[in-house]
């Protein structure tokens, strides 16, 4: 005989897979957006913007699924916490998608010439790698309900925030060339988008802890010093 509430469990699992799958979509968008920035690829940037519809679509699907589950199955205890967390997570995913779009939109604006400053570019690249790894780790942490992994995301986020400040400092000291300065300012904006992505993954990490312990605690990070 099947376990009780079999179809409910299936539906909940499906919903989680759908929601976490959104993180994969974000990873793709982020990779593409950063490549577009590095190589000034306007076409690629355009694709990122267009494909954001996929992420928005995923948000709507998951949202609908959550409403259904709440209305029809009255989940309680852990199940309820999972559903509430998924709602939060999918919002974060949607926002991260928007950040990638913001990055992509900055590409044509920063001019068709090659980028000007190697340091800044390296830093951006480094930030991108960190963000990417944060995204994977957030997905893994949620799927496996790993609190340790979730808490580790704060460490990586601290690094991203540090890089963000460094890029800003570099841009301020970039020199007198107007074009370079303009490019650097756009890079500041890109860095800010990446920093936002990092913050969102920390939000997801907080949800992991909520699901496991039932308690919601804001992680100590750059914006909330311990």
């Amino acid at each position, binding site marked *: 005989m099947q*376990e*009780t*509430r079999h179809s409910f469990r299936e539906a909940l699992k499906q919903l989680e897979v759908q929601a976490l799958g959104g993180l994969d979509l974000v990873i793709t968008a982020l990779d593409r957006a950063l490549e577009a920035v590095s190589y000034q690829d306007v076409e690629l940037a355009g694709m990122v913007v267009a494909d954001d519809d996929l992420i928005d679509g995923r948000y709507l699907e998951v949202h609908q699924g959550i409403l259904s589950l709440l209305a029809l199955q009255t989940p*309680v*205890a852990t199940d309820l*916490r999972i559903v509430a967390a998924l709602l939060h997570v999918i919002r974060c995913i949607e926002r991260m998608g928007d950040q990638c779009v913001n990055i992509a939109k900055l590409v044509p604006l920063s001019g068709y010439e090659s980028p000007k400053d190697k340091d800044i570019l390296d830093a951006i690249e480094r930030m991108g790698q960190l963000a990417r790894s944060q995204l994977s780790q957030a997905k893994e942490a949620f799927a496996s309900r790993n609190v340790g992994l979730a808490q580790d995301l704060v460490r990586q986020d601290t690094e991203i925030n540090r890089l963000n400040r460094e890029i800003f400092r570099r841009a301020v000291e970039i020199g007198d060339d107007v074009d370079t300065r303009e490019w650097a300012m756009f890079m500041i904006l890109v860095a800010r988008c990446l920093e936002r992505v990092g913050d969102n993954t920390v939000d997801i990490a907080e949800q992991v802890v909520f699901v496991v312990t*039932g308690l919601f605690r804001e992680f100590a990070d750059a914006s909330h010093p311990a």
Partner: protein
Amino acid sequence: MISRDTTSKEATDMSTAGGPSEQKDAKDEAPDTSAIGVREGEGHAIQVKGLKAFYGKQEAIRGVDIVFPPNEVTAIIGPSGCGKSTMVRCINRMHEEIPGAHAEGSVTLDDLDVYGAGVDVTSVRRLIGMVFQKPNPFPTMSIFDNVAAGLKLTGTKSENLRETVHRSLRAVGLWGEVKNRLNEPGMGLSGGQQQRLCIARTIAVEPEVILMDEPCSALDPVATLKVEELIDELKERYTIVIVTHNMQQAARVSNTTVFMLDGELVEHAPTQEIFTRPKDERTERYVTGKFG
């Protein structure tokens, strides 16, 4: 017999009203517990220590300690056979009415030891009232007599019987629906009304605690919600313990929830915690439906 729904046109008989607050609306009357009158004193708590209950040789409750806080609704949930009904029946000593059944341990209502030597069991039951799963108004009695039955059966002299009956009916929100037919048989009411009549009968003797054993199981959803509303009002005046197999009802109605399994108390916590983050694995499994 179908009860007629009394929609508004009623002659308010002020001579029989008597209570301080008279509500005029017949159809959806909100229960008016203030009509019961001012009672001095704080709420009353029940403390259970080391309770064991037996049906012959079989142990149905294996040693339970619990406190039911005053003026709160405590729900007891658990699968069939876990001992929840047995538990409440031990509180008002109805358990001993079953041949071969006995209980050990202590149950105290404030300072009164319910099982004390020399304690009159009928006095205990006057202080601790009970509402049953299937509404059971007395078939040979009218609505009025049903509510008065508790007083008449216990030989309690009530200065103004009529006053008390009317107050009780108002307190359960039945007054508007039945005030013009108090002499009609109690069985002529609908299921939900009958159950509220039984509740009126219980509170007419002015207990301190009300025990409810699955009071809404036999009622339709609308009647159920009315009774739940009533429970919410009644807790201002009484301490209420409700046994229910409907978890959503426990969630809606109670302040504290107790989960029992196989005669043992597994978890006892504020309702919100039990349903958002239960501490015990077994509780989690039960409320999420993961058993089996």
